[in-house]
């Protein structure tokens, strides 16, 4: 009953012409119902992609989606397309040292792509979603005879060898040794595209558009849950644009957490080290015993909380739980204060084990958080965050 009542509350709020973000945050903080693509819609609002005024949504969505299409056209650079008659002496060519050369851009990009490619092929391996084909592939790319697929640019190539058998005169048998790709994240046939390929494109475009930051490992774990929620939206009008919409939501989210990913900002106010010391401060305040134990064992937050914070806990819990946690994180009035309380709650909940354990078993426990109802953690986090007020 309570669940149905919550859905009703969401329906009522989302039906308004102007959706007050503050009201949405209050409601969504306690979790967004999985039904009817509510999460995807609420995240669009919470991450500032859609404004409060509903009447301008359609204009904004149209513009943004068009813009994204342009990004693809402009930035998935294919040099060589404009060469006339193969004459490379006057124009651009692969060995050009001109920094404006489209070829040199191409090769520079491939460095980035190589890293992205490795990571998207190991995104959420415990669910099959990312290995499945998308309903809405990027037509120009999937029908390009494999030429424009990003991962073919960084594919490792080896020359084919053949076993040639001679019998009498002439060759009788040429046997090409073919190895079947048994990879799960194998590319799709012409005209099809797997979800991981879509994620690869999003990350590549992000890296191109944010050259100062580029691609850093772990960003795949941030875009993953967003894209997953958007691509499974039951509303086809939204689902069709999961790629473009999740790109912009990811970009907005990254603008708030990008400092975690930048080494030179580690020591700054919004850097990862500040977040980790905030966590320790919470811990010291809320549970001195554990704090002392960690001190004594020299168990630093870098060993466990670095990953927790950088990835917004996406590697610590199964995907449905991550989505639920993110509802709260995205609804946090002081993003990402609440995250530090969630992390602190995770530690406090394990108190008995941690006080008993030696250094090794404690690290192991924290790095492999035991399965539990995520609601327990979130309630504890709320409790801790309130305690601080006094």
């Amino acid at each position, binding site marked *: 009953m309570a669940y149905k009542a919550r859905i009703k509350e969401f329906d009522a709020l989302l039906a308004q012409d102007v959706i007050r973000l503050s009201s949405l945050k209050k409601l969504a903080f306690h979790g967004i119902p999985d039904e009817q693509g509510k999460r995807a819609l609420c995240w669009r609002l919470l991450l500032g992609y859609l404004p409060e005024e509903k009447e301008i949504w359609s204009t904004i969505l149209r513009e943004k989606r068009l813009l994204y299409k342009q990004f693809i056209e402009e930035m998935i650079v294919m040099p060589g397309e404009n060469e006339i008659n193969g004459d490379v002496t006057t124009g651009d060519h692969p060995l050009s040292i001109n920094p404006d050369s489209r070829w040199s851009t191409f090769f520079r990009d491939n460095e980035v792509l190589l890293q992205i490619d490795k*990571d998207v092929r190991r995104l959420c391996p*415990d669910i099959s979603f990312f290995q499945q084909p998308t309903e809405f592939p990027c037509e120009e790319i999937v029908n390009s005879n494999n030429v424009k697929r990003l991962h073919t640019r960084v594919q490792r190539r080896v020359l084919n060898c053949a076993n040639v058998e001679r019998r009498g005169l002439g060759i009788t048998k040429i046997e090409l040794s073919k*190895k079947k790709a048994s990879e*799960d994240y194998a590319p799709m046939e012409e005209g099809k595209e797997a979800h991981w390929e879509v994620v690869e494109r999003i990350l590549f475009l992000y890296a191109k558009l944010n050259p100062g930051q580029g691609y850093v490992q772990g960003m795949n774990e941030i875009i993953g849950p967003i894209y997953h929620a958007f691509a499974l939206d039951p509303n086809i009008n939204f689902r069709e644009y999961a790629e473009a919409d999740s790109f912009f939501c990811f970009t907005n989210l990254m603008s708030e957490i990008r400092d975690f*990913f930048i*080494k030179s900002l580690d020591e700054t106010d919004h850097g990862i080290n500040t977040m980790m010391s905030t966590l320790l401060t919470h811990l010291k305040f809320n549970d001195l015993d554990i704090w002392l134990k960690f001190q004594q064992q020299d168990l630093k937050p870098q*060993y466990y909380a*670095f990953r927790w914070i950088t990835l917004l806990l996406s*590697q610590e819990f199964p995907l449905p739980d991550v989505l639920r946690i993110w509802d709260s994180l995205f609804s946090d009035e002081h993003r990402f204060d609440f995250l530090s309380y969630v992390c602190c709650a995770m530690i406090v909940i394990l108190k008995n084990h941690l006080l008993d354990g030696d250094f090794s078993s404690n690290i*192991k426990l924290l790095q492999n958080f035991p399965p539990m109802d995520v609601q327990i953690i979130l309630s504890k986090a709320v409790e801790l965050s309130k305690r601080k007020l006094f």
Partner: protein
Amino acid sequence: MAKKTYDLLFKLLLIGDSGVGKTCILFRFSDDAFTTTFISTIGIDFKIKTIELRGKKIKLQIWDTAGQERFHTITTSYYRGAMGIMLVYDITTEKSFENIVKWLRNIDEHANEDVEKMILGNKCDMDDKRTVKKERGELIAKEHGIRFMETSAKSNINIDRAFRELAEAILDKTAGREPGDSVDRVMKITLESANRISGNMSVQSVLTQNKCLPPS
């Protein structure tokens, strides 16, 4: 307090470029299994395995690091406490081999001077995609006076042996033996290989004996 169930504790560290198979090597060693379904390591991961060496129970505390540059500030802080470092490259990725020099420099800068090192050329089951010859690995190891082995986490080649040899080297040191025999050891292996080749055996059979290729 937990009871002490071991005689010695060795801290080991796995480093190398992203995607060379550090996590898979560690998983093979600690759980004797292989899976390609690993998420990328962010920051630093951790496993423990207790082995027996010369009648001593040795607890290996093994840190698995992220390969990408961004994580170096956190990962380099572990170099200091490490007693052994495994430096991994991928025999099918030239770049990961070229970067060995960079990783060695990192070790020089951040690790204890007497840390035991070992270079591993991983994925040696994928000989059809090989771009780094075994000899090149041996050579760079020899130049730096470091142990070397080709491994495959997938086919379980040399994984156990690599960890045991590294642990043994540390044990030698802690037992107060004369250090500096690592150079000899690599030399010996190389010489042995050379002898075998001159003894009318093909490279193929040497590799087979080193368990890096299936016997044909």
